[in-house]
Each structure stands twice: as structure tokens, then as C-alpha cells.
């Protein structure tokens, strides 16, 4: 396998049972493509949480998952994206979570605050995004156009030893 880049895209109607299938594929694929078990573990966590989020929020149709790994020094080297359509209330909740994260001092404290808030709640709490930020050690961004939402998680990684 080419260690310099490894990219794949998947379109599917998200169902929870399929998320684990995708997560296992991501684990197996990037374990071979990259020599970094810690990074692969964080990528699989991120992929699972973004897809769970898509299952919860997907209005209809397909979710588009993209994972790319490259070594362009000008851009993040691991990028994981989901794109799907969502209801207005889910989009509003997502905007609110991103505002909170932007206002927060750091990922670890935001994760702890979100844990405290979600205890005892059964509705959406944003714990998945907080977990990606803190445990996945990923930068997060989003874009909303109409009823389509794109969530992107990215991280720069050290170039592998030759």
C-alpha cells in the first residue's frame, strides 16, 4: 500500500448496525496503510461517532463519508468528513454545539462540562462531538448549506520515518 496517501469515500443509508462494519473496515484498512496504532484508534473512534451522529440527524437519503490521509505540509493530513441532510432542529442544535466548543478554553474541559450536563439526559447532548475533540484529539469544523450539513474532523500527523 502507498503510505503517502489513502483515501476512500462511501455513500450509504446509515443504519446503526452498518456503523460497526465501517469502523472495522477503517481499522483494518488504516492499520495496513499507516504505521500508527494510536492514530488509527482515534480515526476509528471519530468515524464511529460521526456516523452515529449522521444516523441520529439524517433526514433522508444517504450519508457521504470521506476519509483521506495525505502528507501535504500545507493541509491537515487526516480528514474525516460526513455529509448528510438534517432537520432544522438538528441543524440548530449542531450550530449551538459548535458555538459552545468555539467559546470553550480547551477540549478536555469542554468534554468534562458536557459529561456533567449529559448525566441523566436521554436526548442529544453533544457528547459525541466532545469526545472526538478530546479523545480523538481532532480539530472539528462544520458547514451548513440549506438542509445539508458537513462535519469535518482533521488532524496533522508527523511524517512517518523513512
Amino acid at each position, binding site marked *: 500500500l502507498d503510505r503517502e496517501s489513502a483515501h476512500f469515500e462511501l455513500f450509504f443509508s446509515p443504519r*446503526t448496525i452498518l456503523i*460497526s462494519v465501517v469502523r472495522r473496515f477503517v481499522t483494518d484498512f488504516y492499520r495496513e496503510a499507516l504505521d500508527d496504532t494510536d492514530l488509527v484508534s482515534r480515526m476509528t473512534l471519530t468515524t464511529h461517532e460521526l456516523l*452515529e451522529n449522521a444516523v441520529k440527524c439524517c433526514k433522508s437519503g444517504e450519508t457521504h463519508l470521506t476519509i483521506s490521509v495525505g502528507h501535504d505540509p500545507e493541509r491537515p493530513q487526516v480528514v474525516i468528513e460526513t455529509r448528510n441532510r438534517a432537520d432544522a432542529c438538528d441543524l440548530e442544535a449542531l450550530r449551538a454545539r459548535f458555538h459552545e466548543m468555539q467559546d470553550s478554553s480547551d477540549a478536555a474541559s469542554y468534554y468534562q462540562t458536557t*459529561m456533567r450536563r449529559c448525566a441523566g439526559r436521554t436526548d442529544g447532548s453533544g457528547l459525541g462531538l466532545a469526545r472526538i475533540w478530546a479523545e480523538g484529539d481532532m480539530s472539528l469544523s462544520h458547514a451548513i448549506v440549506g438542509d445539508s450539513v458537513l462535519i469535518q474532523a482533521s488532524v496533522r500527523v508527523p511524517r512517518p520515518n523513512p
Partner: protein
Amino acid sequence: MNTRIELSGGAPGDDFRAAAARVGGIVTVRFEGTADSTIRPRLETMLGDIHRDALRERTTEVNVDLTKLEFMCSSCLRSFVGWITTIQEMESHGRYTVRFVSSRELLWQKRSLQALSAYAGDIVRVQLV
């Protein structure tokens, strides 16, 4: 008194399993497979049952064996946060600790359990195997 509480996945292809057993004063809960969001309602019920049993039997520690748990999503992690918060909010004399037994090979466990330890260091213990 011995108690057993069991839980398994409901959907086809779902490999999740959980079993809690009390033998004397020791409660051990073992998890296997993947805890995804479909599991959460039943997991919450199970953790509630374990909590009530722990109070009734005046348990001082519950062991939670995660060594065969491939992955846990944030919805299920939230159930653990809820359980730990419930213990934290009790009077100190009635509290018990939760000892997570974690696999070194499953790297997500290290990060998730660090977060739970930071959340409730007085309740959460972590043992690596």
C-alpha cells in the same frame, strides 16, 4: 446471595453481550462486542439494576470488565456517566467504587477511562491488563 443480570444485543449481527454476577460481596460485570447506540436503553436499565443491587447488598466495589469490549459509542458512555453521577451524588457512607478492568490493546479504553477518572476520581478506578 448470588445475583445474575444479563443483557444481549437485539438486532441481527449485533455481537454485544453483558453479564453481571454477584458472588458473595463481589459484583463483576463483563462486556463483550460493540456497545452502539441501539444498546443504550437496555444498558441504562441494566446499570440501574446493578446500582439497586449494589445498594441493597451494601457493595463497596463493582468490577466492570471491558477487556472484550471492542468499542463503546458516546451514547453508551453517557449511560456510564449517569451511573457514576448517581453514585457521586449519594451520601459518602453509601457510595461504592467502580473498578474498570481495561485492555492495553484497545486504545479507546485508555482515553475514555482517563476522561471518566477525571470526571469522578473518587468513584472510578482503572486497572490495565
